[in-house]
């Protein structure tokens, strides 16, 4: 258990509305990630953070923004939700110093987002 929670766990929203998903961790990890999971695509990286106020884009960042104002929280915002953003969103942390080197990640329980 990496002490990661995500909220909400489920959300249904309408096209064009803003949506914010929250990832909260309790272990003070520096690196945090947002992925989306879609059938036939596995997990794809949206954005990541390497410290407070330090974020960067992943491979599918269009339509998403993130913020990290404190170590424990990493927020993902859909400024104007579209149906193509219907997905399951996972937050992850990277444990530095772990045996998996600079890559070992642990995942939260996910948020299922439906955009109608």
């Amino acid at each position, binding site marked *: 258990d990496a002490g990661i929670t995500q909220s909400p766990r489920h959300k249904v929203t309408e096209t064009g509305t803003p949506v914010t998903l929250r990832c909260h961790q309790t272990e003070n990890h520096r*690196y945090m*990630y947002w992925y989306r999971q879609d059938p*036939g*695509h*596995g*997990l*794809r*990286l949206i954005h*990541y953070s*390497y410290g407070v106020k330090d974020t*960067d884009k*992943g491979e599918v960042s269009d339509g998403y923004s993130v913020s990290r104002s404190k170590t424990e929280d990493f927020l993902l915002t859909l400024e104007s939700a579209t149906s193509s953003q219907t997905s399951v969103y*996972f937050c992850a942390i*990277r444990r530095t110093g772990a*045996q*998996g*080197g*600079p*890559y*070992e*990640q*642990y*995942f*939260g*329980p*996910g948020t299922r987002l439906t955009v109608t």
Partner: protein
Amino acid sequence: AQSVTQPDIHITVSEGASLELRCNYSYGATPYLFWYVQSPGQGLQLLLKYFSGDTLVQGIKGFEAEFKRSQSSFNLRKPSVHWSDAAEYFCAVGALLAGTASKLTFGTGTRLQVTL
């Protein structure tokens, strides 16, 4: 760029039978490789990892995987499958981003069904 291929979308095995899930990767340097398992409605759980040393690695729940550099493969195996192993399995390779940041690149997953 790195990539991961899981050629089998869906596999069905009988309880008690052996299992092998295939994973092929593409990465220019020595790879860090992972297998994750996802039960329905759950997040991803790390099964095992490889980054150096013995090419046969043991994981949780009785799983093992063998790294074969010549074949660019990291196949997951279990000698005797239990009904509770029914889940989706993801292979991933670690890759560096800018600075000290890193990410995981995932395959598209293999869904395992276990018949009684």
